[in-house]
């Protein structure tokens, strides 16, 4: 079944305009992405074993995709054997229904969440809030984004587009709302101290903790959480109920597979050899254990994933959400994450958003948010051929006639003429004759049709009075054709 993603919000030209017109955001994004990309490179350079494990990790992920259904069955058996509950969700509504049913049964009012792309994907916060629940994000970045009523602008560092000054303003407003003392200043320790104080209360009062999951280990039914702030542990151990929402693509067969995978996300995402907290959660609290929730639920989210298995796009499901492709992408660095209109931004977002939500959901992304520079291909630890997949989506759009007819005609004529020397030379002659009208100071400054896109922001040299072909013919009359 195809998936459903939240609406993109404003139309593309509007999102693009906002992004290009926000120099503060662009500077912050440029700085943070460059820093993360450098840290990633340094991490792999300093730890040769990391590369060897990466190669094995790619194989483990691809192998797992070939057995997704069997692994999910095994995973489910293992979780249930340990007293946990597993549910399958086709899409957003299923997730919302399941979580709300648990909440109703428990009489729950307050929810804390740790960072999760899957719950962003199904707009779970909105669903729960609409039903009257209080939902609080507890990852610092997500907390900031929630206060700002925005969408994460980066898969890994959702608030990296915000400056400390902007964050302080958000916190000041929140302090005023809650009647708590505001942060002492906009230094990082002061800001985190404020967030910690606020969130501590939320953790203690929460009825349900909701997380995503980085991996699922089938052989023991274990949920793996990679976090840096400790909020994941609080979310999964303080509230009496823990619900994890995890894409079906996250399952691996064994702990051996997990062992080679575990470092890849932190190394590629932040340049850490291992994340600050790596949590393995296998079922609810058992008799004799001192911590852990009373109830443990795992919601396996499909939302368009299963349909990709066995297709040319299958490898996209090996993505570990490290954000490395975002950090090197020149388009992402220029427009930031929110312009993509999806929680999945950057190159992986260009591929994943239309694949999960349908091409019609984000027709602009493949052609407008990629310069085909291939930087993402080199950056991806899972060796996902992102440029090739983006190109395949462009091709599909053309095959499905989603392109303006004038553009299509331009390419058709172009292909027809340039497939033969005579046609090629004819177009050169026509340009030589006709271009005067479009020239200023010896340069083309405007142009009709597709080329007008070039001259909108750049000059072009005119077609030369004598092309190379013409020069060769003139100066080497005897030379063979």
């Amino acid at each position, binding site marked *: 079944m195809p998936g459903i993603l939240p609406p993109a919000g404003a139309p593309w030209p509007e999102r693009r305009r906002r992004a290009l017109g926000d120099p503060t955001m662009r500077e912050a994004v440029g700085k943070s992405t460059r820093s993360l990309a450098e840290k990633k490179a340094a991490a792999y350079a300093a730890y040769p074993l990391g590369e060897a494990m990466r190669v094995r990790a790619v194989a483990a992920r691809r192998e797992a995709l070939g057995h997704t259904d069997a692994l999910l069955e095994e995973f489910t058996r293992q979780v249930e054997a340990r007293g946990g509950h597993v549910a399958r969700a086709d899409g957003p509504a299923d997730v919302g229904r399941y979580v709300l049913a648990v909440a109703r049964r428990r009489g729950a009012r307050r929810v804390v969440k740790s960072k999760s792309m899957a719950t962003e994907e199904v707009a779970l916060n909105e669903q729960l809030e609409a039903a009257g629940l209080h939902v609080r994000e507890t990852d610092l970045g997500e907390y900031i984004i929630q206060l700002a009523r925005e969408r994460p602008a980066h898969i890994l560092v959702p608030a990296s587009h915000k400056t400390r000054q902007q964050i302080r303003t958000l916190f000041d407003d929140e302090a005023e709302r809650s009647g708590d003392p505001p942060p002492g200043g906009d230094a990082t320790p002061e800001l985190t101290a404020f967030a910690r104080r606020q969130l501590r209360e939320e953790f203690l009062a929460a009825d349900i903790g909701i997380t995503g999951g980085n991996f699922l280990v089938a052989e023991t039914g274990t949920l793996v959480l990679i976090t840096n702030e400790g909020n994941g542990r609080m979310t999964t151990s303080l509230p009496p109920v823990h619900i994890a929402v995890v894409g079906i693509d996250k399952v691996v067969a064994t702990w051996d597979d997990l062992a080679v995978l575990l470092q890849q996300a932190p190394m590629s995402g932040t340049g850490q050899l291992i994340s600050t907290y790596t949590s393995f959660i296998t079922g609810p609290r058992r008799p004799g254990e001192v911590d852990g929730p009373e109830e443990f639920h795992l919601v396996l989210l499909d939302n368009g994933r299963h349909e990709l298995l066995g297709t040319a796009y299958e490898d996209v499901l090996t993505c570990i959400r490290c954000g490395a492709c975002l950090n090197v992408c020149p388009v992402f660095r220029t427009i930031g994450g929110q312009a993509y209109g999806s929680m999945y931004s950057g190159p992986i977002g260009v591929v994943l958003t239309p694949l999960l939500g349908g091409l019609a959901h984000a027709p602009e992304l493949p052609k407008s948010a990629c*310069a085909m520079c*291939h930087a993402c291909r080199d950056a991806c630890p899972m060796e996902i051929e992102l440029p090739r997949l983006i190109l395949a989506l462009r091709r599909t759009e053309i095959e499905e006639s989603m392109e303006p007819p004038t553009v299509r005609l331009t*390419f058709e004529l172009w*292909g027809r003429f340039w497939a033969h020397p005579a046609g090629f030379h004819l177009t050169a002659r026509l340009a030589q004759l006709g271009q005067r009208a479009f020239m200023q100071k010896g340069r083309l400054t405007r142009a009709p049709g597709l080329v007008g*896109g070039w001259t909108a*922001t*750049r000059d072009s*040299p005119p077609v030369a009075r004598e092309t190379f072909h013409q020069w060769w013919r003139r100066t080497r009359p005897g030379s063979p*054709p």
Partner: protein
Amino acid sequence: MTRAQLFVSCMVDLFRPRAGIAAVQVLERRGVELEFPAAQTCCGQFAYNAGHHREAAAMGRQLVRAFEASGANGSPVDRPPVIALSGSCAAMVKHEMPELLERDALRRGRTPAAAGWRRRAEALAGRVVEFSEWLDGHDAPAPSGAASGAPASLKVACHTGCHMRRLLGLTEPPLRTLRRAGVEPLELVDADQCCGFGGSFGLIEPEISAAMTDAKLAHLATARSEGATCLVSADLGCLMQLGGRLTRRGDEFPTLHLAELVDMADQGRLTAVEIGRVASRQGGDD
């Protein structure tokens, strides 16, 4: 005598033939017996990356045919190398063409010919060598008089295109070529970031494209403050993007194809003044 065929690229052919002419001089000066297969038009990369693969394949087939014809009518085994004046187009031929032509033949129902097209494209792919890579491989010692005219301190900013860098893995050859020419190459900060062109992307998204270029030009400004006399690239696409944005901003900083710079160095006329003179010539005003 070494034989070679010149793959000039449609952009050099139409917009900067001087770069092609310079390459001819440079190669012939090094004793290459150069052929120019006149049936070549375009490798189809622009259409290919825009997703228009039928059109790209039509152009690609023509390119393959053009380079199969050889003036010295050699058998396929001793067909000469094809020296490409664009890293990006070389990458298109080497990495995409065989699969594209095979797939397109299948799409057109020419099943028996599909494998043949793949083989023919692979044969061409195997012969294609990027210009600076060729110079590098032949370690062409600069002919007499070369480099002597260039003050040792002459600095040039260098931009290597994304496809040349990532798909061909050629980051050092242009730098070494410049050093052999007696100039000091200055790589820009964030050298591996795209110039903003990106084929159809640059036409569909002129504003994002220009914003990317402006970031590159900010780093170029640093290189200029360190004494760069011009911007050099082995890819005319990047050079037209960067140069076209410069002049749109009223900036006449010289931009040169690598072949032009090597040609000037060969002749011992590589000076800042001469660079400015060559760069300011418009294709149409030669």
